[in-house]
């Protein structure tokens, strides 16, 4: 069974551009969360989606947006890229959003470099 797949694996963009990152959860998982990991830091929560609805949003500017599709895959969009957006973007999927459900499975991430 395939794990969480993210695409692309690496990406280089120029300041001011827009980027779309994609995530396919494990089959049967209905919840997808996005995290940003800047070099030397731990992952920071960006969004959580469950059953195509936003269930949580972290402390990120409105340039960051996301959505979940009927097949539970998800996209993370970042507009007007800044150098500080350079990071590893991680997607995690889980069966549900029950508190204490630590059954997160993370993908390998998309490494975004903004130049």
């Amino acid at each position: 069974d395939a794990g969480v797949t993210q695409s692309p694996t690496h990406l280089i963009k120029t300041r001011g551009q827009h980027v779309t990152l994609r995530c396919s959860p494990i089959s049967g998982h209905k919840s997808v969360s996005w995290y940003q990991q800047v070099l030397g830091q731990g992952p920071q929560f960006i969004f959580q989606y469950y059953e195509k609805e936003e269930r949580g949003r972290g402390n990120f500017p409105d340039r960051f947006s996301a959505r979940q599709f009927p097949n539970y895959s998800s996209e993370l969009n970042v507009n007007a890229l800044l150098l500080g957006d350079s990071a590893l973007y991680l997607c995690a999927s889980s069966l549900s959003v029950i508190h204490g459900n630590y059954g997160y499975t993370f993908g390998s991430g998309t490494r975004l470099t903004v130049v």
Partner: protein
Amino acid sequence: DQQVKQNSPSLSVQEGRISILNCDYTNSMFDYFLWYKKYPAEGPTFLISISSIKDKNEDGRFTVFLNKSAKHLSLHIVPSQPGDSAVYFCASSSKRSGDKLTFGTGTRLAVRP
């Protein structure tokens, strides 16, 4: 405001000995604590967790201890193996924040053969 802190960026341990990784938190609303392991070019992998109603949870070579009064938890790995060399993240969640995880900055463990 760093609510979860891992003050040791790195740790080096001899194979066969005990590795102790530490984590401090400030938010008393956290009620689940987790440890993740991360190898380069891979996503974090869940290792072990503990509920705030417990003070110890054990799974094979891995034991997590929670001291609520000190807002401190630790991960013990015994015996340490070279394959344990990775970055370890402590993470916390609270019922109020749903499934959102708050991570520490990580500790890089190197187990020397």
